[in-house]
């Protein structure tokens, strides 16, 4: 991961900066592209014949174009989106959603955070997690995962905006 990061960072950031982006925007975009790439690999999206760097570059170009468009139209819409929120439907902004996720995951405790992220996000097999962590066996880990998921769902009930997270999928 680090090797891929270092090998591609400068090229992609240079592309963003030369297309009206700042250094900070470039780094942010590059990291998001790395994550998109990682997600695609996890899902088993068949990689084309092109090299990793070409795939990353292509993701970056399309993502940057989206962000530029969004930047151009975001200002006039800002007041409108605030009004929608006052209606009580609470569509969270991206930033609010990220904050709430950080908060809720922080409340889960280290064990739960670790188990859920490994199992659900990284899709690491339970057997592998059990052998790495403090779990006597796979079944205990399975039970713990169930408890953690239950706890997360309970915490989410107090944050109705997060229950709508599935609606914000691209």
């Amino acid at each position, binding site marked *: *991961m680090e090797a891929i*990061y270092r090998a591609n960072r400068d090229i992609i950031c240079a592309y963003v900066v030369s297309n009206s982006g700042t250094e900070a925007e470039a*780094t942010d975009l590059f990291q998001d592209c790395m994550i998109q790439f990682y997600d695609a690999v996890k899902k088993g999206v068949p990689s084309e014949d092109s090299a990793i760097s070409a795939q990353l570059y292509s993701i970056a170009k399309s993502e940057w174009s989206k962000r530029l468009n969004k930047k151009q139209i975001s200002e006039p819409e800002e007041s409108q989106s605030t009004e929608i929120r006052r209606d009580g439907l609470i569509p969270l902004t991206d930033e609010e959603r990220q904050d709430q996720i950080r908060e809720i995951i922080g409340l889960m405790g280290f064990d739960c955070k670790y188990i859920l992220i490994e199992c659900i*996000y*990284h899709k690491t097999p339970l057997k592998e997690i059990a052998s790495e962590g*403090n779990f006597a066996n796979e079944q205990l880990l399975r039970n713990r995962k169930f408890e953690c998921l239950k706890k*997360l769902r309970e915490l*989410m009930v107090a944050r109705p905006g*997060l*229950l709508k997270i599935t609606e914000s999928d691209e």
Partner: protein
Amino acid sequence: MNEEFEIEIERYIKGEMSSEEVMNFEHRLEHDPEFKESYEATLAAHKVVEEAGRQELKYNMWSYENTPKKQKKTFKIGKRLIVTIVASIAILIGMSTFLNIKGNMSASEVFEAYYQPYDPPSVIRDNSGGGSENWNRAAQHYAAGNYEDALRYFEIAEDNIHFTVVEFYEGLSYLQMDHPDYSNALYYLNEVRLEQSELKEQANWYYALTLLKDGQTNEAEEVLKEIARERTYNHRWAKDILKIDIEN
């Protein structure tokens, strides 16, 4: 929510069901409101975890921005190439683990490669004209790199600053002085890591690095193992360090 529901829902989300099972599942979703509600809540919880995973990944990527590249100097050329290939393969097969190749470094080199100064403390602004003067002076000296002066004021910092925050910066000041005082640094960082503090995890990380710098490699490894196991502050770096053969 019961476990049976949950297993079924998860198999559906992961696409592990046969087409017949999918049909039954979707039929149930349409006709059983309680099941549907449970499904939607679980799906939302999965999305939250996925987002949290991305946040964590992004947080870890910032360490690549901050880690000096000189760290790689310690690998011989052949190994460097292997590291690159292994890392590429790791991502391709969806592994979240990183480098697996061991290199040899002295404890001091490890410290130099992984040590990053922590953000200076914030100056407290109040209009009442008092209350945080010593703390603020300490913070200003600390930010300017005058650690001896900072320490004089940290020691008499006001009570409105939590003692663990003061001790954390005292520990870091002893560590960063021109002539570092490792035993005092270890003392203060240890105090913080054993307390319930907002800086507990950070103190643990700097405590481990200070142990390394002080030549207490075995003790440092124990703390690093704890950080890696509990996935606390800088746990990925802790994992990386544990893969290195540290020469005493």
